[in-house]
């Protein structure tokens, strides 16, 4: 992992002090709420449906166990509403009806698709204290919200993926530093998200970002970036366009400075729904590209101050060396593999876990293990204070003290020795993290939705719970194979419904919750094909119908698929019509012609 320097530490502490000053003035009535709002947002503090929400930045998803323990402490000691608030919130939620809903929960963290961690109940007057606690382990909420360059995300397997061309982490870190408190880009037209991968497989959904970066080698072996610009979800889903096929690695900051500066000047400010860079790129196209290139030239002519020196890349890269995992000897490895095989033959569940939650590593003696936070009784990506602490223990014992928050709202252990897999399985199972459903239907993405979020039009979590409950049978889940099911509670698309093979979007009509279902979306992975938004199957469904609609869609798949064909491929081959018809036939409360 990146080793934070004294400078980094002092910087985060200065930021916490700055935030405390702002909060103090706000609470004293010297800083008006509307003037404080953008300041708290740029520190990760929202005010949601019932309480503030804190989004903690996890740069490119990497956390160490000490940081996880502080997150656990925050969940335990701060993520607690007063009993009056909780009772009021619960009673308001109970009135919504339409579908059985899990109760609101407290004292937990939530993993997001952008690899961050959120808390839902921390009172605002405790927020400065929490920021200081976070700063003690180099954590913060810098630029996790607001119209600025957001926390940079990456491949969950950065630096360990077998299909990796170039480790993206040093570049992600250099870009983290560049974007942190950039004075010129703190008040952009709209939020600005960057994702970076260095693998053939895109596990970071780069085409769905304002800027997507793929670090690669050209035919001469030189390292550079393919740069995509103008992707994003929301009301107008658009995938990114390539603006540069190959930019030399040391120019990435200079180039992004041009990309963002032109956007700052040209992006629309009159309509929040048209302010993202995707709208600018769509409207101006080549004219925007030309201006970026012209601005980049001016940056070069005026000194190219942010050209990254080799020595700096080397320094940062040195922070990402493999942790001192004991080398597994060939003999020990063979023994471990034999033992795993024997165990797997005896234990079907273990076999499934190995198959679905464990994957290969650049180091043949190691494996990458996903801890599943998708299980009955808890919302997707939620982890209680105790579970966060347990995850920290597992990281220490089995993964050199490191975990990664992934895009699918799970935790990944990046450094697991092959001869410790069986022990890890037992420990993960005891903790409830060993559900063998990674990438399967119930490994769904869901935003917090109308249970917590002020923007939501409908709840996501009761839908997620109903689908999880219906699809508990692992035989059935394995038979259905890998399916991306994504649920968003509103068009802001935090649950990435646009990119789901099956997407579910909460909409509000006449004060009631309705759900639009889309099919055929893709995040850009090999399984899903080139990134694209799904298509709507028909008018929206009532909450209680959604799980039946999903089942009807999956039944069509089972009926139509060819041997070994995934859901995404079948859908692609046979087209939408049969799926649409089945989905619409599953209506029972909404009129067919609704």
């Amino acid at each position, binding site marked *: 992992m990146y080793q934070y320097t004294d400078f980094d530490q002092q910087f985060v502490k200065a930021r916490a002090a700055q935030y405390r*000053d702002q909060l103090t003035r706000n609470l004293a009535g010297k800083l008006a709420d509307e003037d404080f709002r953008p300041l708290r947002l740029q520190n990760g503090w929202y005010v949601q449906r019932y309480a503030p929400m804190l989004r903690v930045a996890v740069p490119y998803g990497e956390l160490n166990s000490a940081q996880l323990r502080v997150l656990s402490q925050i969940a335990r000691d701060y993520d607690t509403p007063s009993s009056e608030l909780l009772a009021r919130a619960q009673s308001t939620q109970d009135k919504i009806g339409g579908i059985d809903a899990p109760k609101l929960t407290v004292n937990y963290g939530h993993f997001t698709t952008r690899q961050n961690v959120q808390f839902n109940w921390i009172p605002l007057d405790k927020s400065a204290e929490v920021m200081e606690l976070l700063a003690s382990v180099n954590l913060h909420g810098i630029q996790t919200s607001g119209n600025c360059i957001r926390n940079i995300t990456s491949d969950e397997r950065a630096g360990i993926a077998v299909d990796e061309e170039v480790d993206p982490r040093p570049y992600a870190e250099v870009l983290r530093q560049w974007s942190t408190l950039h004075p010129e880009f703190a008040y952009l037209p709209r939020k600005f998200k960057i994702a970076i991968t260095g693998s053939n497989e895109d596990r970071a959904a780069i085409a769905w970002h304002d800027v997507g970066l793929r670090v690669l080698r050209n035919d001469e072996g030189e390292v550079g970036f393919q740069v995509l610009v103008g992707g994003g979800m929301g009301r107008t889903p658009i995938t990114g366009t390539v603006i540069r096929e190959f930019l030399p690695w040391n120019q990435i900051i200079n180039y992004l400075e041009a990309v963002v500066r032109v956007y700052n*000047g040209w992006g629309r400010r009159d309509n929040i729904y048209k302010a993202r860079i995707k709208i600018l790129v769509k409207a101006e196209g080549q004219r925007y590209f030309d201006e970026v290139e012209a601005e980049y030239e001016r940056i070069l002519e005026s000194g190219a101050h942010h050209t990254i020196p080799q020595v*700096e890349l080397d320094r940062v890269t040195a922070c990402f060396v493999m942790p001192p995992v004991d080398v597994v000897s060939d003999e020990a490895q063979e023994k471990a593999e034999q033992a795993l095989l024997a165990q797997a033959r005896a234990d079907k569940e273990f076999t499934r876990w190995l198959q679905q939650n464990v994957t290969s590593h650049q180091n043949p003696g190691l494996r990458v293990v996903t801890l599943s936070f998708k299980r009955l009784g808890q919302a997707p990506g939620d982890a209680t204070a105790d579970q966060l602490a347990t995850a920290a223990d597992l990281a220490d014992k089995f993964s050199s003290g490191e975990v990664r928050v992934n895009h699918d709202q799970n935790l990944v252990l990046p450094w697991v020795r092959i001869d410790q897999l069986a022990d890890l399985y037992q420990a993960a199972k005891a903790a409830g993290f060993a559900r063998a459903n990674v990438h399967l239907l119930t490994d769904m993405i869901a935003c917090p939705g109308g249970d917590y979020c002020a923007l939501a039009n409908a709840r996501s979590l009761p839908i997620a719970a109903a689908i999880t409950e219906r699809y508990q049978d692992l035989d059935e889940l394995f038979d259905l194979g890998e399916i991306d099911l994504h649920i968003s509670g509103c068009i802001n698309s935090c649950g990435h419904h646009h990119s789901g093979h099956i997407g579910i979007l909460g909409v509000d009509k006449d004060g009631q919750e309705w759900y639009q279902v889309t099919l055929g979306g893709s995040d850009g992975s090999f399984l899903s094909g080139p990134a694209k938004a799904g298509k709507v199957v028909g008018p929206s469904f009532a909450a209680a119908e959604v799980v039946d609609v999903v089942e009807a869609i999956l039944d069509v798949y089972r009926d139509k698929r060819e041997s070994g064909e995934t859901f995404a491929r079948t859908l692609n081959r046979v087209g939408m019509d049969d799926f649409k018809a089945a989905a619409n036939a599953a209506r029972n409360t909404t009129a067919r012609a609704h």
Partner: protein
Amino acid sequence: MTLQIITQHTADGTNARALANDVDVQTLDLEGLERIDLNFPKFTDGRAFSQAFVLRRRGFTGDIRAHGDVLIDQLLQMQRSGFSSAVLRDDQDAAHGEKLLGLYKRFYQGDAVHATPLFADAS
């Protein structure tokens, strides 16, 4: 260069020009200008930060002054983007604003005042 915080703007005969925040300052004629007034219609509209940066990059050494919805919490960003003076919104506490300018010793990225980034310090 420390930002001059101004609580009351008075005309002083300086050859100044006020620009809207959608003016392209890359091609603006700077000849004879002693001061350029840039505008923040709302403090969350950050276009003038880029205008100031580009003006400094073009070599403008006169005064660049922030007008409009100027709050003390954005002064540091203004200073770093190339502003040399700022006229505060009426309700702002200038003394506290002075303090906020000194919150950080150094930043990661280069800016209009300190062109090179932190990584250039070491190399």
